[in-house]
């Protein structure tokens, strides 16, 4: 299941939705929220590329299923205006074994960070700036190639 939406999501309900298969064995999830390291973040606005976003997230999910034996993949990513503490992204993977569930979940987050067309703009008071991509994200994504 791939969802790109402005609405909030219930991470717990998404996890419980992944638990409904008796043959599941192992479910790994990642949930990301808006941090405010500076203490001055007013808002974080996520722009995305409608169409390409869904296409790229589906391609990521397909690639994860090609690499690991997964019985379910869930990716939910928000866009629009968020404030500190808001949920941004949920990734959940289900497999018979924990190593596959963990690896696929981490892979999806790493590749999502470098391939899904989202851009963050920070607002501190009246000042707005685009968040720059981190080289550490490229390094993390390169692990899987």
């Amino acid at each position, binding site marked *: 299941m791939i969802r790109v939406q402005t609405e909030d999501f219930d991470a717990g309900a998404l996890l419980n939705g992944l638990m409904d298969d008796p043959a599941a064995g192992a479910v790994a999830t990642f949930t990301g929220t808006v941090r405010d390291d500076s203490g001055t973040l007013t808002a974080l606005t996520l*722009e995305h*590329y409608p169409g*390409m976003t869904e296409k790229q997230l589906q391609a990521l999910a397909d690639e994860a299923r090609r690499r690991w034996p997964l019985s379910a993949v869930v990716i939910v990513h928000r866009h629009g205006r968020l404030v500190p503490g808001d949920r941004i992204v949920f990734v959940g993977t289900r497999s018979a074994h924990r190593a596959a569930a963990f690896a696929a979940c981490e892979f999806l987050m790493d590749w999502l*960070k470098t*391939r*899904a*067309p989202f*851009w963050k703009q920070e607002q501190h008071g009246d000042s707005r700036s*685009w968040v*720059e991509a981190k080289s550490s994200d490229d390094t993390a994504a390169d692990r899987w190639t």
Partner: protein
Amino acid sequence: MDLFYFAWLREKVGTGSEQCALPAEITTVAALIDWLKTRSPGHATAFADLALVRVAVNQDHAGLDAPVRDSDEVAFFPPVTGG
């Protein structure tokens, strides 16, 4: 050709999307960018440092040497920062 700009490239170009009739002699992303830079000072500024620019052709990531034709959808944006 459908062109899309995102994040600060959108702001510099001054629009999120535009359409153009691609000259027949332009067949790569690199040539397309060189041509777009002549369209306005905003375009020229947006494409001033190509190290900061990423490209998608028909919603797939592409390099500067990727082929383009008039029926393509081409997008320009900074490195992505989702997740």
